[in-house]
């Protein structure tokens, strides 16, 4: 399910965090679903176990997963949709952040950008126009 790209400048633990969040947001990983153990995922991806452990700690901190000692790590099940929603927010914010930074670097003003975003929003949410 997960992959690691060492050509990317993004640290491996962050790649794992982002992919688990995305999978949760898309429902590929569902509430209550168990994640592989740290060691199993480390061997599946051929990465250092501490890297996986760090990713799991970050996911716990961000409220996406919970770890029951001795039982393993699970996608959080309280309120069912809350972790998915949280994950979706995180993934989206990162994407928008990148787009806005790029736009600013190319010289667009806040108003230029607002117009662009409005156009995009109108296209994807026509009913709420």
């Amino acid at each position, binding site marked *: 399910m997960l992959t*690691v790209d*060492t*050509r*990317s*400048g*993004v*640290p*491996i*633990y*962050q790649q794992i965090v982002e992919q688990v969040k995305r999978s949760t947001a898309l429902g590929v990983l569902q509430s209550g679903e168990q994640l592989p153990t740290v*060691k199993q995922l*480390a*061997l599946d*991806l*051929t*990465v*250092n*176990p*501490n*890297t996986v452990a*760090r990713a799991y700690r970050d996911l716990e901190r961000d409220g996406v997963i919970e770890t029951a000692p001795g039982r393993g790590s699970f996608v959080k099940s309280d309120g069912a949709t809350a972790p998915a929603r949280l994950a979706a927010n995180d993934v989206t914010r990162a994407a928008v952040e990148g787009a806005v*930074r*790029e736009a600013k*670097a*190319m*010289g667009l003003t806040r108003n230029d950008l607002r117009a662009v975003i409005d156009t995009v929003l109108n296209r994807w949410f026509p009913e709420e126009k």
Partner: protein
Amino acid sequence: MSINISHLTKKYGAFAAVDDLSIEIPSGTIFGLLGPNGAGKTTTFKCMLDLARTTSGRVTYDGKPLAPALFEGIAYVPERSVLYDWMNVAEHVEMNRRSFKRFKPARALELLDTFGIDLRKRTRSLSKGMKTAVAVAIAFAREADVLVLDEPTSGLDPVNQRHVLNLTINEAARGCTVIFSSHQIGQVERTAERIAVIDRGRLVLEGAVDDLKADRKIVEAVFPDEKYSLDGLAGDRRIARVDRSGRIVRLMVLDGAPEFAHRLESAGGAGVRIVDLNLEDIFLYAVAPASANTDVVEGS
């Protein structure tokens, strides 16, 4: 078992192959040693194992110098295999069984099978990659406390390279301390928690892989003309180097990339962007000689 390399120097005549090298490797971790060809990686390993006489400095294991009592727990896979041409693979397994009390012959046979090696073959007739695999299989059956691996994947196909890396991860997971060198930087990035880069015998970079990638960035800006000033940034120790090319400035920063992006904008820079670096980029920057347009602000 923790390993401490302290001010290690190895001279051949006037030439220092290893020059005042200090590295600390915590117990149970995987440590990657990177460097260009001839940087001193193999010499470092040889000094760690008393296979080369150290000129000065010392290497200790759990605080103690290398002594015969420790040999049993230290396994070394040299860059060039030290297998005996006239013996077959099974005889090498037997030789190790007789030499090392902790050696697990069944485990060695299992690993050799994983690598697809015929036990009856004389090692003379094995390919370079297969020789590496035999040496690795035997070392990993030693139940060692310390594994010293010099290019442990060289000549292996991608499937067997993965085997070696996963076995290394397994060894560390049971508490073994691993130090390994490789030119395959992607492999080092996957498996090592900390790395050191050496160049011409000297340590040029050391740190946790994730931190290095998270902190070190290129901050790039384009100025309207060539008459811009970066005086505001002078003396900031977080800037490792400054590359100037006409109107374009690229700062290699050790930390605080967003802040530098902001400061370049305040200085009149446009098109400011932060570029992520992968470990290969970080390695190349660490060993690249400075060009005429480069100000190396700090040695690292």
